[in-house]
């Protein structure tokens, strides 16, 4: 069951929200202040699907709550509700990591629709992660070459050439973003799972190895292009993307 956390010091609004959200079939918990909410969200992560967060709370305000929450690595969706609806406040909320922002007084049906929207996006994300996993098994063909990701081989003119797991994964990430520049740091994080501040030469070395495997002339690559000072770009049909 979807569980929401309402963080609101105004008892009347908290009760009104709880009544309506429960009527919509959600399970609702409430907290009156920022400290308690933060404790709840960090001590029991993944038990809450969405947080409705007021900004003007006693003690820690809502901005600070969302900032600290994000700094712990929690990505639970946060919808901020507040009487402070000026542009600066709204932008600040988003900058600190809120997913949506609704000024008070709000329209009940709009609030419910936004909650549904956020929860739907959350579900899509979960589903697309599963799809991405399924993509692992796929094959990909370009310019007379065929990559079989599951067998970790590249087939060209009937000749199969083995690839290592890292080479395959790196290639898959580049192919998935075909035509786009992918930064070295992003590749490091996605393929090797290491933090961004690690040495990025690892990526360069693997790109050289991949070029030797798939390019006709590794010193003049046509598919795995270097974008100087940034990263790499995969192009399936070199003629189109000069």
């Amino acid at each position, binding site marked *: 069951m979807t569980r929401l956390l309402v963080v609101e010091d*105004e008892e009347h609004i908290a009760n009104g929200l709880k009544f*309506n959200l429960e*009527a919509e079939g959600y399970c609702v918990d409430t907290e009156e202040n920022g400290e308690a909410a933060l404790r709840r969200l960090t001590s029991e992560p993944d038990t809450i699907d969405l947080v409705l967060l007021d900004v003007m709370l*006693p003690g820690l305000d809502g901005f*600070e709550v969302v900032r600290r929450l994000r700094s712990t690595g929690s990505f639970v969706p946060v919808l901020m509700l507040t*009487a402070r609806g000026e542009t600066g406040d709204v932008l600040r909320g988003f900058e600190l990591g809120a997913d949506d922002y609704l000024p008070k*007084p709000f329209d*009940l*049906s709009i609030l419910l629709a936004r909650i549904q929207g956020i929860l739907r996006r959350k579900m899509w994300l979960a589903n697309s992660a599963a799809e991405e996993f399924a993509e692992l098994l796929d094959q990909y063909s370009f310019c007379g070459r065929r990559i079989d990701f599951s067998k970790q081989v590249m087939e060209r003119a009937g000749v199969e050439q083995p690839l290592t797991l890292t080479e395959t994964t790196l290639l898959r990430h580049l192919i998935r973003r075909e035509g786009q520049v992918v930064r070295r740091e992003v590749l490091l994080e996605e393929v090797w799972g290491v933090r961004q501040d690690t040495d990025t030469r690892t990526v360069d070395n693997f790109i050289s190895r991949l070029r030797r495997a798939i390019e006709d002339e590794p010193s003049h690559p046509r598919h795995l292009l270097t974008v100087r000072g940034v990263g790499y770009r995969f192009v399936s049909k070199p003629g189109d993307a000069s």
Partner: protein
Amino acid sequence: MVLSEMRRRKVLFVGLLGALLIAVALALNIGWIVVNWRTGLWLLIGIISFAVLIAGLVLNTAFLIREIRTTEQHNAFIHAVTHELKTPLASIRLYLQTLHQRDVDPTRRKEFLETMLADSARLQSTIDQVLLAGKTGTATRVTNPIDIDLAEVVGECVTVAGRRHHLIDGEVEVIDRLPEGEDAVVMGDREELQAAVTNLIDNAIKYSGERVRVAVEVVKLGARSVAINVRDQGMGITRDELKRIFRRFYRIPGALSARVRGTGLGLSIVRAVARRHGGRAYAESEGAGKGSRFTLELPLKPL
């Protein structure tokens, strides 16, 4: 939190800049004295000019710092009023839409209506407060004063406050210290006096925390004036804050204050009302945590 941090930085910057300029001017002044120290007239002219320069810098820095503080307080006031106006409105709207869109059982419906009534009272009191602050903001005396029995006003205010804060008997008590058979009659504006007394009682209740013990007394001070004392055993006030709290928009910084709703207008209204009636308002406290006593002193109607 961020607001006060920004203010502190601004004040620090202006203060440092001012101090630096004053130091430079002082150094130049000393240099001037050393260089011209036998020249009589030039020495005198130099010292006077430097003195004027330094005084100007001191005044300018003090003025800037005060202006920054006022602006920040003004911003804080706008935020507080926005919050105080929008929160009850948001609540009322939420309950109205709930009743409009859903089937609510009769007990719940009654509960929702009571909530909305309480919110509309809160909205009304904020609006009254802002309007009254505007009205009493001018320092002129009350126009068309009428005879007012202070003990009666105090009694009414205590009853209303008790109902609004859902108090039980004894939490706010009225102590009549007037001599037997005597009234305390003042000439003034009933609405303003009621607002002033209500503000004092509300503050005493709000800043008491969990345990409310408030005493309100009407005392004659000689033959010419009368005082309303409101005593509480709440969070108290430090010596530095005693005068500041009567300034418009000023709110004591700190944890309990952050939990107490308010616009920073209440005590400035009390002081303005006192002045418009030819009286004064002041606060006394033994210090933080030791409760406080607020006094509204008014001249009696001449016999």
